[in-house]
Structures are given as C-alpha cells and as structure tokens.
C-alpha cells in the first residue's frame, strides 16, 4: 500500500529558534495520526507547515494527488495548493470563528466549498448543506441561522460539516475539542470518530489532550521542543511510554 501523505525531514525555524526540526512520517489512507505535546512544542507550527499555511525551511511534504500521484505540495504552484486546500484537504481550526464566516448563514458556510469548486444549482447546494447539517447533528431548521447564534459545540460541528462536504481525503485538525466543555467534547469526539470511519478519512490531529488521541488516533507522535521524540501505535505509546518526556506527559494526566 502506498502512503497518502509523506513528510520527509521537515524543518521550520523562527530565526534562531526551532519551530520544528527533522520531522518525518508516513500516513496511510484511512489512518488517523495524533500529534501531542505541550504548548510551544511545535505541533501547531508543524500542522501549519503540513497544510501549506506556513512555508517550511527544509523538507518535503508529499501528497498522493488524484491526477498526478505523489506530488511535493511545497513545490506546487499556489493555485494548485489552494485548489487542494478546498477539495482533497480540509482544515479544522481550534476556534470555530477562524474557520467559519460568521456573517453568513450555516447553509452558506457549508455551501461555500461546493460553490468554490463550481456548484451552481441552489437547490442541490442547499440539499447537500442540510444533509451535512444532519450528519453533524444540527437541526435542518437552523440552516438559515448565522453561526453567531450557535453554541460553541455547534459552531465546531458546523465547521466540521463545512470542511467535509466536498469529500476530502485528508483532514488537518488543530485542537478540535479545545475550549469545549467535557460533555460537548465527548459528543464531538464520538461524531468525529463516526465520520472518520464512515468516510475512510485520513486525519492528522494536533492536541494536548491525551484522551482525544486515545479515542481517535491509530498512531501517535509525541513532540518536544520541535522534535518528534516518540512515535508508535497510540495504545502502545500511552500504555508503555519509552521516552522520558512521554512518561512525564502520560503521568501528568489527572485521574478523576
């Protein structure tokens, strides 16, 4: 099986400081990878480099495109990369406000990606939008409400619907459950897990919450000071941490 997404020796520096250094990994179709680490460990920098939001200083980010096979997305022209960003890729921001148009109705938010790739039939767009709202457990009668009238959890679910409507193959998630209370988190995780399995999505999830990766991720990468210090199957890393920092991380989780 060929990987869907390959990262080779990716490095990003902020002047003399390290953003992330020599990160390499392969991601296979249908696989969910978690990236954990404390604040400042470089996980958001890494994710932004992967998704093409930040230009890395070194390394390759290869993606198995539908038409041309493996392509280095860093060498791609900007139109191609942006096209990828609204078709095969999706990016779920930590704050739903960053990923949504707050002045546009829920239906318009979900429909935007469809219209961006050329859908021009109002009835079809609306039908798909309502279908997707249903899948993320938002009532169809809220389709014309603006996201500002939604609760935090609903906004996050709407952001997910908006991203998944074009059937992407790879989803980047930056702390998708950050800032939500635990019961809402649990529901969102449940929903995400269902969607990822059902659509056969590959995903890269950045989080500092170990419970999130335990539930969602097949594989885990632990970051510290810009380096990937440990990788492995999620349960293996969490139940039998080898690196000192991972041991600290796992033992720091509060037990209720």
């Amino acid at each position: 099986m060929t990987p869907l997404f390959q990262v080779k020796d990716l490095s990003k520096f902020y002047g003399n400081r390290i953003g992330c250094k020599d990160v390499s990994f392969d991601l296979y179709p249908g696989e969910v990878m978690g990236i954990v680490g404390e604040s400042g460990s470089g996980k958001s920098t890494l994710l932004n480099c992967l998704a093409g939001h930040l230009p890395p200083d070194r390394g390759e980010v290869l993606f198995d495109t539908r038409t041309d096979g493996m392509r280095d997305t860093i060498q791609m022209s900007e139109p191609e990369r942006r096209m990828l960003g609204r078709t095969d890729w999706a990016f779920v921001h930590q704050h739903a406000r960053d990923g949504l148009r707050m002045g546009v109705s829920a239906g318009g938010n979900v429909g935007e990606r469809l219209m961006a790739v050329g859908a021009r039939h109002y009835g079809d767009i609306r039908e798909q939008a309502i279908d997707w709202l249903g899948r993320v457990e938002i009532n169809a009668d809220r389709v014309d409400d603006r996201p500002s009238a939604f609760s935090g959890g609903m906004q996050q679910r709407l952001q997910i619907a908006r991203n998944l409507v074009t059937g992407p193959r790879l989803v980047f998630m930056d702390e998708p459950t950050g800032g939500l209370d635990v019961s809402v988190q649990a529901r969102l995780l449940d929903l995400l897990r269902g969607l990822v399995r059902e659509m056969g999505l590959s995903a890269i999830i950045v989080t500092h919450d170990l419970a999130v990766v335990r539930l969602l991720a097949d594989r885990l990468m632990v970051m510290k000071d810009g380096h990937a210090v440990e990788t492995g199957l999620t349960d293996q890393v969490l139940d039998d941490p080898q690196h000192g920092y991972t041991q600290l991380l796992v033992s720091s989780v509060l037990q209720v």
Partner: protein
Amino acid sequence: MTQDYNFAYLDEQTKRMIRRAILKGLAVPGYQVPFASREMPMPYGWGTGGVQVSASILTPEDTMKVIDQGADDTTNAVSIRKFFEKTAGVATSEETSKADVIQTRHRIPEQDLREDQILVYQVPIPEPLRFLEPRETETRKMHALEEYGLMHVKLYEDISKNGAISTSYAYPVKVEGRYVMDPSPIPKFDNPKLEMAAVQLFGAGREQRIYALPPYTRVVSLDFEDYPFEPSKADHACDLCGSDTSYLDEVIMDDAGGRMFVCSDTDFCRSRRAAGHVGAQGVPFEEDAA
C-alpha cells in the same frame, strides 16, 4: 477665454498616468488597475474617480453629458457639468446622442450608445468581494487565482433569506469569462446593457482603482442554474411619457399614498414626450415649458 486651469483641471503628467491605467484596464477587461488618484475639488463620493477619468480623456472638441441616477438636472450632475464647462471649456449637452463623453452615476442611458461614444462611471467601491472578504491582499489573490465561489455565497444568502436573488444594484458580473466585476451601483435592469458598442470606463477615486470594458465585451451576470438572473424594474409605465420599457423612479406625491412612476433617464423621457408620447399623468409636451 483665458484659462485659469490647465485643460480639464488635471496637469498633463497626471492625465498621462491615468491614461496609462485606462489602457491597461482596456487590455485586461474587468481587472482593477491601481492608479494614483488625486485630490479633486469635491468630496470623495461625489464622483472624483469618474471626474479624473473624464478629465484625462476629454479633448477640446468633445461634447460632454453628465447624468446622476439618470437625471441631467440633479446636484451631482449639474456641479460636475459646470466643473468641466469651467475648467475645460467643453460644450455640454443633455442629449445622449449628441454627447461624446457621458459621465454617469448609477445608470446607463436608455438610448443605445454608439462606437464613438465613451461612458464613464463613478464607482464608490470597485471591489465586488469587499463585503465578503475585507482583506485587500486576500481579494487580490482571489481575483488572481479566479476563486470566485464566495461571490455565489452572497447570492446564496440572498435566496435563502428572501426566496430570490434580492441584490438589485451593483449586481456582480463576470467579464469575458475571467474577472468578476462590480458594475458600480447601476440597477440590475441595466446589466444586460453592459454589452454595448461604446467604451466603458470605471473610476473609483477614493479607492484608487480604474477598470474598463472595451466595446462588445462579453459580460455575464452571475446567477444559479435554478435561480437565473432577471433584470427587474417597477411593474408600471412612465406616467409622463408612457414608456413601459424604461427604468422607473417612484416619486411620492403626497402623504395620502399618491405616487407616480417616471423614467429615471430624463433625456429619454423628454425626447419621447417631444415626439408626442403622453403618459397617464402627463400633459402634452411644450418646448421650454419648465
């Protein structure tokens, strides 16, 4: 007459700069060309962009016509016409067919224009994506990469809120299958007329942008397959000249619900009445009756 100003107010270097922007705009129809807009002796919003464009294309032999919402006799039209009478000494006319250069605010004349005429628009906000995407860096990128999905989001919102595309003026168009353009706040009734024989120039003074449509350029109003574009007007005939094809203004007559509909193009209405047409509330036309 001794000239207190350089011909048409602007100095020759400025006119040269503006003409270069106009030529670039004509070469890339619908593309917004930045230009170094000058301070004009009138406030922004009064047509400083249109005035600068007109000033740089006027020649002493030209006849100029200025209209504001279709009318030749409103403040904006009168003051700009006087401005060019004073600074350029050009002849002015209210008759569409006699004018070489027509500066307009928010209307296209009813009468078809000819190839030897130029229509200059005053544009308040040239960027059609502005209210959807406030960042100029981003909108420029969207134009460059032809990412116009967002424009349809606005139309989608219209339909979802009002059951129809309720955008009735400044209705976005796609030029030659490439650039999405704001046709300035003309009613969407005028959109089909954007494909015309005359050269059309758009000037936005405060926003410092010039764009253009060469003659016979293909201009398509954006829409949805199941909600096609419809040019709309008041469902009425002109009460003065009886025309049922021209764009109408609604005039409130009293506080008891009395109203009349009249052509917004005053020259069109006057010439129809001179030809003997009389509307429901009109009286037979007499020369210089006003």
